[in-house]
């Protein structure tokens, strides 16, 4: 049996097929039991993917709601709190222990280039490599320059914002990384989850341990691909 066309199934479920295409698919479902079995399996996969990320989206809305309430409370307590925060952060920066650095190195891995990912020994000419490939190849300065111009032209590009944050982190520029990763982690986007994970690592790298713990705790308290890692890193911090 030829490979199941999941894109056709996706179009069917999203009402993107023409009347004729839809009729043809439904006829095949009735007449071909093997096709029907594959249809049901792949439908379960797509339904499960949708359910998983719907849950995640709802969690993001809840977290945003909670942050909004907290923000209003903090505004009332701003003067005293900010003075205390400066003192705590300064203390943490002075006291970033070797063990926190080791934990960072243990858990930090460069993120995959999921935007375009040719084989590393690709024949694509060097001058034609995208900024995402530059990140992938460790050419962080070039990636940062290129992604900044991409973001300037297209301020809504989640990919550019996320990989710019990653590039700054990889280039040992955590303050700049924090800006982009923090922004992206609060978006409702495909990259918000990994952005939050790398934001936690960035705080860890900067010695902002309490902020790192807060981020990892948020990740650990919701379902998602980074929950196990967040739980593991919290045990070590």
């Amino acid at each position, binding site marked *: 049996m030829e490979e199941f066309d999941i894109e056709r199934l996706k179009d069917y479920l999203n*009402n993107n097929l023409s009347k004729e295409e839809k009729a043809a698919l439904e006829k095949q479902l009735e007449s071909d039991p093997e096709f029907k079995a594959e249809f049901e399996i792949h439908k379960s*996969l797509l339904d499960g993917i949708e359910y998983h990320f719907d849950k995640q989206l709802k969690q993001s809305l809840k977290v945003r709601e909670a942050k909004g309430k907290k923000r209003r409370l903090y505004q009332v307590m701003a003067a005293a709190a900010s003075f205390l925060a400066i003192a705590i952060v300064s203390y943490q920066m002075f006291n970033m222990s070797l063990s926190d650095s080791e934990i960072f190195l243990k858990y930090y891995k460069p993120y995959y280039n999921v935007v375009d990912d040719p084989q590393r020994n690709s024949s694509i000419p060097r001058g034609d490599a995208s900024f995402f490939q530059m990140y992938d190849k460790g050419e962080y300065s070039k990636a940062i320059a290129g992604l900044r111009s991409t973001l300037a032209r297209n301020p809504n590009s989640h990919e550019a914002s996320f990989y710019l944050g990653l590039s700054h982190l990889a280039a040992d520029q955590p303050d700049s990384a924090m800006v982009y990763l923090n922004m992206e982690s609060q978006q409702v986007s495909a990259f918000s989850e990994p952005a939050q994970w790398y934001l936690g690592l960035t705080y860890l790298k900067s010695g902002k341990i309490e902020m790192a713990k807060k981020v990892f705790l948020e990740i650990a308290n919701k379902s998602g691909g980074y929950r196990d890692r967040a739980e593991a890193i919290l045990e070590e911090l």
Partner: protein
Amino acid sequence: MESSDNNIIQNIRNGDYKDVVVFYDRYKKDFVSWAVRKFPVTKDDALDIFQDTMIALLKNIRKGKIEKFDYSVKNYLYAIGKNLLLNKVKFEKRYDNEVDESTIERIAQQVLVFPDKGEHNIQLVDQLLNNLGEPCYTILKLFYYHNYSLESIAREIGSKRANVARAQKARCIKSLKDKFLKKFSEDRLAHGNV
């Protein structure tokens, strides 16, 4: 109706969810006030239902059930939310003249509400995704939840690389499928037919 509401539909169908928070902030207060006034629910419950309603609205847009807003977005939210609230309280609605009931009924025939959460296969895939590593986790999210298309990737990065993205996508869905079939068989052996 806000003039930008129909523009937001196209963004959502293209997988860009940044406008979700625009909708969320714009309609939350009215929805919660309406729900609390009309149904015997607490403010927290109403907020929870509003979040479910937003998710369901997105699903309807993704699946083409709502292609443009023929009525105000508030009516769509109330139509979907009403089903969810009735499910929650199993109680007859109180009379309320804030919205046109016939409009809500008309919309309610058209839209989907949240799927049955108890279905075993869906829960199984949900668990598998929690343990799926990168890059497949993000690739599946991009292509099958945010509906990124290979065409949009090709426009961004060139058609040669879009073929690479296509191959990655196929590998990832196969990996999830293999894990699903394995777990499904194990569950059947352990518990009988599910």
